[in-house]
C-alpha cells in the first residue's frame, strides 16, 4: 500500500511537469503495474492532456500558474498517503507538493536566467571586439586604388544566379595548401594596417592562386567587407563577394555575417524588402547560435523597420 502512494506521488509530479510523463510517468506507470493499474489508468489520460498547458511557460504570471495544477493533484491523490488519511494530512501533502512545484519552477527560472546572463556576457564581449574592429577599419585612411582593380572582380565573379559550382566546396581540402596560409596572412595583415585598397588586390590575387583553399571562404568575406571601405567603395562588388560566399560555402561560419552585410547593402541601395529578407534569414537560421550577426540583425531591424 505504501508504495502505491509513492507511485501516485511520482505520477502526480510527472503530471505536473507535463511532457515528462512521456518517459518518467511511463516508467512509473509500468512499475506500479499490478497494484496500481487502476490508478495509472486514472493518471494517464489526464497526464497526456497536461502536455498542452505545460508548453506555455507562465513566466509572467507564476503566481497564478500553479492554480491549474492544484485540482489535478487533488483529483489524483485521494487522502491515501497515511492509510485512512484525514483531510488535514491530505491538505498538508497538497501544500507541500505545491510548494515543491513552486520552488522547482523558480529554480528553473534561476537556471535559465543565469544561463542567459552567461550567454549575454559572451555575446557582448564578442560584439565589443567586433565593434572595435569595425571602428578601427573606419578610422583607417584610404589608399590609392586604381578603378580597374576595383571593378575587375565584379566582372569576373559569377552573379548569384550563375550558381558557382556546388561541388567545389566539397573538393576544397580542409588542409591549407603550401603557401596558402602565408598568402592569406599577408593579405590579412594589410587589412589590419588599414591599407584597404592594397588588401583588395592581395585578396583578389589570393583567390586566383587558391580558388578552393582552406581560407578561400574567408577571402571572399574579406573582399566583401573591403569593397565597402575601399575608395571608391563598390557596393555591387561587395554584394557579389558575399553572394559568392553564400553560394559556394553555405555552411561556412562567416555566412551569418555575410547575410547581415547583404541586408545592409540592400538597405543602403534602398531595397528595404530584399534587405529585410536577408536580415530575417540571419535570425531564423542562426537565431539559436551565438553568432553576433543575429543581434546586429535584430538591432538593425528594430532601428529601421
Amino acid at each position: 500500500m505504501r508504495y502505491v502512494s509513492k507511485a501516485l506521488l511520482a505520477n502526480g509530479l510527472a503530471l505536473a511537469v507535463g511532457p515528462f510523463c512521456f518517459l518518467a510517468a511511463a516508467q512509473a506507470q509500468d512499475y506500479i503495474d499490478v497494484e496500481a493499474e487502476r490508478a495509472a489508468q486514472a493518471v494517464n489520460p489526464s497526464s497526456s492532456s497536461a502536455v498542452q498547458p505545460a508548453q506555455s511557460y507562465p513566466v509572467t504570471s507564476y503566481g497564478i500558474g500553479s492554480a491549474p495544477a492544484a485540482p489535478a493533484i487533488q483529483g489524483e491523490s485521494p487522502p491515501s498517503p497515511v492509510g485512512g488519511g484525514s483531510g488535514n494530512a491530505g491538505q498538508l501533502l497538497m501544500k507541500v507538493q505545491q510548494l515543491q512545484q513552486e520552488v522547482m519552477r523558480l529554480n528553473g527560472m534561476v537556471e535559465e536566467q543565469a544561463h542567459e546572463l552567461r550567454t549575454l556576457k559572451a555575446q557582448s564581449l564578442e560584439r565589443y571586439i567586433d565593434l572595435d574592429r569595425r571602428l578601427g577599419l573606419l578610422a583607417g585612411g584610404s589608399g590609392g586604388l586604381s578603378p580597374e582593380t576595383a571593378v575587375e572582380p565584379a566582372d569576373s565573379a559569377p552573379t548569384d544566379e550563375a550558381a558557382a559550382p556546388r561541388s567545389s566546396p566539397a573538393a576544397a581540402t580542409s588542409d591549407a595548401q603550401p603557401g596558402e596560409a602565408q598568402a592569406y596572412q599577408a593579405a590579412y595583415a594589410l587589412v589590419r594596417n588599414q591599407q584597404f585598397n592594397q588588401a583588395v588586390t592581395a585578396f583578389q590575387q589570393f583567390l586566383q592562386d587558391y580558388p578552393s583553399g582552406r581560407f578561400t571562404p574567408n577571402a571572399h568575406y574579406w573582399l566583401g567587407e573591403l569593397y565597402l571601405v575601399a575608395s571608391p567603395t563598390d557596393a555591387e562588388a561587395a554584394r557579389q563577394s558575399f553572394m559568392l560566399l553564400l553560394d559556394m560555402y553555405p555552411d561556412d561560419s562567416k555566412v551569418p555575417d555575410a547575410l547581415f552585410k547583404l541586408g545592409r547593402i540592400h538597405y543602403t541601395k534602398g531595397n528595404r524588402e530584399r534587405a529585410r529578407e536577408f536580415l530575417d534569414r540571419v535570425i531564423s537560421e542562426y537565431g539559436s547560435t551565438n553568432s553576433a550577426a543575429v543581434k546586429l540583425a535584430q538591432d538593425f531591424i528594430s532601428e529601421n523597420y
Partner: protein
Amino acid sequence: MKHLTAVILGAVIALAAMSARAQLVIEITQGMDNPTPIAVVPFAWQGTGAPPEDAAQVIDADLARSGQFDPVDRGDMLARPSTQEQVFYRDWRAINSDYVLIGRVSVTGQVQMRIEYELFDVNRQARVLHGYEEGHVNEARMLSHRVADEVYETLTGIPGAFATRLLYVSVTRNPAGKDYYRLTLADADGARPIVLLESREPIMAPTWSPDGKHIAYVSFETSRPAIYRQELATGAREQLTNFRGLNGAPAWSPDGSTMAMVLSKDGNPDIYLMDLRSKQLTQVTRHYAIDTEPAWMPDGRSLMFTSDRGGRPQIYRYDLRSGATDRVTFEGSYNARARIAQDGRNMVMVHQSGGRFHIALQDLVSNRLQVLTSTELDESPSIAPNGSMVLYGTKSGDRGILAAVSVDGGVKFRLPVREGDVREPAWSPYLSR
C-alpha cells in the same frame, strides 16, 4: 564459369535464407548527396557445396546502410575478378566506380572460415587495403561485417561499427490478455535475432557492459521492477536489485565496476551507484524532483541525468568528484534521456520542439543543438560506438519501429519490424573477437 554459377546460386540461397530469418528489415530513407561509388564483387568461393554466407552481399549492404557509399549493382559489373591479376581498372572506370573490393572465401576443417579481401582505388590504380578475417563458420556474417569495418575505416578514416550488435525490446500486443515482451539481441544490421528473454511482464531499459560481454535490463517478471545482469555467453542471470518502488535505468560505468541506476526506495526517484562487486549502494542525487536516466561521461568522472528540478525535464551533469550539479540543456522545454558518444563531445537526447519529440544532438563544447530527426514521438536514442549513427525508437503508423540517423542528420534509415512494437534499442560497444 561453373564456379561463378555456384557463387550466384549461393548468393540467392543465402539471400532467401536471410530474409526469412531476419526480423528487422532495413530501408534507407535518406542518403548523402554524393555517396562514394564502390563495387563489392561477389567473393570467390573456394570450397564445395554452397558458401555459408554471401560475404560480399553483407559488406555491400553495410556500406550502403552507412549512406556514405553507393555500391554498384552486381548486374552492372563488367567483370568479377577475385585476384589482383584479374582486376582491370578500365572495367571499373567504365561504370564510374571509385573503388573495387574483391575477395576469396574458404572453409577448412568444416568449421574454420577465412575471408581474404583486397580493396583497389580505381583512380589511383593502386591496392589500398588487403587482409583476411578468420573465424567459426557460424560467425560468417560477423566476419563479413569486420571486412566492412576495415573497408569503411580505410575510406573514411572513421572506424566502422558494422561488427557490433543491438539489443531491443519488442512487444506483441495481445488483445485477449497480457502482452508478450521480448528482449532481443541482433547484429547491427538487424540480422540473426536471438530472443534472450520472453515475459508476460514488461522488460525495459536494456544496456551493455563496456566490454560487451554482459547486459543489464529491468524486468517486471516478479511483478515489480528489478534490475538484472546477464552474461551473454552463458545466459547466467543475476538479480541486482529488488527495492520497493522504482528500480530502473541501469547504466554501466566505463570501467565496468559500477552501475548507475534509479531507485525510489526512499520516496522519490533518485540516482544511485552500485559497486558491482560488493553490491554496496551510494546515493548520488538527493532531490524531491524526479532524477532519472543516468548516462556516464566516457571518462567516468561525471554523470548526465534527467531531472525536473527546474520545473521541466532537462539534462544535468553531476560531477562525481566535486558533487556539483550543473544544468546542461537550455534550449526547448523538454530534454531527456541523454546518451554520450565515445568522444565525450556529442550528446544525443530526446528533445521537444513544437509539441513533437525529436532526437537532438548537443555539442558539449560549443553547446550548439541540432535536431536530427523529423519523425514524431522519437525516444530512446542510442549512439554507435564509433559515434557516427544514432539508433532510436519512433512510431510508424501506430507501431513502434527502430530508425537510425547519422550524427550530422544527413543519413537516415529505418528498421521496420515484421510484427509487434519495437523500442528501446541499445547499440553495443565494440566487441572483442
